């Protein structure tokens, strides 16, 4: 198992068009996407992206269609070349890699899952899953053994001789996931991997991903336009709009402290009771008596409310992972937060 590695994205710009490089300084000087498009017929894809993706965590990049999120993830393995900026992985700048080094980097450091699966239709499930190892030059017996292990791990045992067109969408994406995991690359790039699946299967696949992540600890970059999905799986979330990051932080940060009106609009329909954890909204300890009732800091708000109501408590202690009290939550504040008033 390879150790997780982080990704640092610095001052990344992407301007689509034949002379993109000429407009970087103009965009840095404040030229808008609209102006660039109207006056120079170039499209601003990404503007000054700075993002530290921690090793071994799930970083979600969220935004509506056209916000540049798929463009951004394609810069990490350089399926798209940036106009300016750098992407540092293990001390190396991906942007400056010569072709052979880039190929080796893609083979060993990254694996990718695609929205429309990107499976090779003329290959069986087994040969699709083994594709990454095949291009590395591993012999058939060895790669089939590894591939079979992951096919079983994603629950597709018995389907290895089927062709992609014989599988449902959810099963095809399991193949896509198994193909990515078979490479055992420390970085997993997932481009709207679950957006084409229906809600139940999507939830199911999120569970598969979270289970796997607890075992393999990869650095996962996950693109989505679905806020519920982002909040469920993301350790950190970055919100993208018109090619710029408008807020980044944990899910709690984004729901409780939206950076601007756009973000608050985005999060206003979230079921706060299920998302907000008491650790993010607790108040400092005070002297008032809580009768020894306490809940862990990762408890959701609605669960906390349920316990407080059933035990008729006005205030409850909040404990950290080691079961030490670190704060307390009043019924009044809990209700205010869940109603969106605080």
């Amino acid at each position: 198992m390879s150790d997780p590695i982080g990704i640092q994205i610095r001052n990344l710009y992407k301007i689509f068009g034949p002379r993109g490089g000429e407009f970087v300084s103009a965009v840095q000087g404040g030229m808008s996407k609209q102006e660039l498009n109207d006056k120079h017929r170039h499209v601003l894809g990404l503007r000054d992206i700075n993002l530290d993706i921690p090793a071994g965590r799930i970083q979600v990049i969220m935004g509506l269609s056209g916000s540049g999120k798929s463009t951004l993830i394609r810069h990490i393995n350089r399926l798209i070349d940036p106009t300016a900026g750098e992407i540092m992985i293990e001390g190396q700048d991906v942007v400056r890699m010569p072709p052979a080094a880039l190929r080796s980097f893609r083979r060993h450091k990254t694996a990718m899952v695609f929205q429309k699966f990107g499976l090779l239709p003329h290959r069986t499930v087994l040969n699709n899953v083994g594709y990454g190892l095949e291009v590395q030059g591993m012999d058939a017996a060895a790669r089939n053994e590894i591939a079979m292990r992951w096919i079983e791990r994603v629950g597709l045992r018995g389907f290895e001789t089927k062709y992609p067109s014989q599988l449902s969408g959810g099963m095809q994406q399991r193949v896509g996931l198994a193909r990515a995991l078979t490479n055992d690359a420390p970085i997993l790039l997932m481009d709207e991997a679950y957006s084409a699946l229906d809600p139940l299967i999507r939830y199911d696949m999120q569970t598969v991903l979270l289970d796997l992540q607890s075992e393999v600890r990869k650095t996962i970059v996950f693109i989505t336009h679905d806020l519920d999905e982002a909040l469920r799986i993301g350790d950190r979330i970055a919100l993208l709009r018109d090619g710029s990051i408008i807020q980044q932080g944990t899910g709690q940060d984004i729901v409780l402290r939206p950076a601007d009106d756009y973000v608050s609009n985005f999060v206003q329909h979230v079921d706060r009771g299920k998302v907000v954890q008491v650790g993010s909204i607790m108040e400092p300890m005070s002297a008032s008596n809580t009768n020894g009732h306490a809940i862990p800091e990762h408890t959701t708000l609605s669960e906390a409310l349920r316990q407080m109501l059933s035990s008729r408590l006005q205030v409850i202690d909040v404990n950290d992972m080691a079961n030490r009290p670190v704060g307390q939550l009043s019924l009044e504040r809990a209700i205010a937060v869940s109603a969106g008033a605080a």
Partner: protein
Amino acid sequence: MTWLTEFPQIDNGMLRDLKRAIDDGFRNFSRSYGDAIEAVFDPLRHFLSWSENLLTDTPWPIVLLVVGLLAWGASRSFRIVFACVGTLCLIGAFGMWEDTMKTISMILTSTLMAIALGIPIGVLMSRSDRVQSFVSPILDVMQTMPPFVYLIPVVMLLGIGKVPGLIAVVIYALPPMIRLTNLGIRQVDGEVLEAADAFGSSRWQRLVKAELPLAMPTIMAGINQTIMMALAMVVIASMIGVEGLGLPVLRAISNQYFTLGLFNGLAIVGIAILFDRVSQAFGHRLQKHRGGHNV
């Protein structure tokens, strides 16, 4: 007012000189290099003679057996096997076995050549728009120029015989092979190619593991077209010494033998249908992975 009713053309003397200059130039070229060029095509001539002798010298039952086996291997359909063998038996019964074998040998050789030339050119064309915009007009010329016109320089260079005939057939049959290879590769789903790149495929791996297999239905259609065009060219190529079913047709035209022409014409149609069905069935079988229920 003659300049209004008659198009102002280049002076007759000048035109004559121009034509003569080009003709003389080409004649001199073919006189001095004709032998050398012929030597270049010598291996081709040997291969043609070899494949023709192979087909005509092999006892007919063995040829029928091999054709039947090939048809079975390609199509896995008894209907197609019986149709193939039956057609050949009928052709043989009407006294056209020898000519048919010569034609089949010609078609196979020219199709192999067209594939060997057409796929690489098609791949190059799909790689760059510049190559495409350069090759496309050449293909237009190849497809619309009356074949008789390019028979002239071919005959001047190489004389009359199998090799010039083969070259004429290949020129005529090559364009669909190139065009459909190019089209097939350009139509490959972008996300699948992104996936191939994302896993670190080299350009060659990407071509042989993703692009060509995904373009295969279109490429197979190109091969099918090439075979049909080559068969259509057989009669014209007989004018420059290609033996086979075209020659009796040519004789029938000049002597007004309606039945002779009709029989040989029908034999050409027969093997055309045979080639077409077998190659299409083979193409479909290659695409068995598309037969799933979903998507």
